[in-house]
């Protein structure tokens, strides 16, 4: 398992956990959303900082860390992540337009939750796309 796969597994685990937390916090805060109800998942940013540090950690000085195949996989995963995040944002906007109506309003404190969700979905899609392209398995079809 290379660095990209380890990072993807970490990202997948963290994203799933955070997505559950974000959805739960929005559901808990549903009757009267308050900023304090939504800020408790802010440590998520710290956890993602760990992911970035994890991504930058090199395996060894004499070993090739990233080659052309890894770059190709990463590029395709980024495209998938951007597309899904954009699709989700458009979907959320359109659905809320139809549900709430064009002249109604939503609590402003739901916006950070939306941003968190988009970020988490981005990482989740990216991680899944990376793992699918590598083939999920540990040794990538080694014989």
């Amino acid at each position: 398992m290379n660095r990209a796969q380890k990072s993807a597994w970490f990202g997948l685990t963290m994203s799933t956990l955070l997505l559950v937390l974000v959805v739960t916090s929005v559901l808990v805060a549903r009757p009267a959303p308050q900023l304090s109800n939504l800020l408790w998942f802010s440590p998520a940013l710290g956890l993602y900082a760990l992911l970035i540090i994890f991504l930058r950690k090199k395996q060894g000085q004499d070993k090739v860390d990233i080659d052309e195949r890894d770059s190709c996989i990463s590029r395709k995963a980024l495209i998938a992540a951007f597309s899904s995040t954009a699709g989700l944002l458009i979907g959320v906007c359109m659905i809320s337009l139809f549900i709430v109506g064009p002249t109604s309003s939503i609590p402003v404190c739901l916006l950070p939750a939306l941003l968190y969700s988009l970020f988490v979905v981005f990482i989740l899609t990216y991680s899944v796309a990376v793992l699918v392209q590598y083939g999920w398995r540990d040794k990538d079809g080694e014989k």
Partner: protein
Amino acid sequence: MAKSEVKNNIRRLRFENGEMTQQQLADKTGVTRQTIIAIEAGKYAPSLPLAFRIARTFRLPIEDIFQYEYEGS
């Protein structure tokens, strides 16, 4: 990833060249072992520069290592 139409003899050539390991070939061509595994399995078609580096490692022309199989061949 879909299987590429580029077939190769890398696995056979490795064994004919002193039973070269996948890691040794990876080190000589500047890629990871996973990439060599993927190329051998036909899961990844290498770029032209990498194909030339592999050909140079085996001291063979590129067409002796990689064959492009198109429809009707």
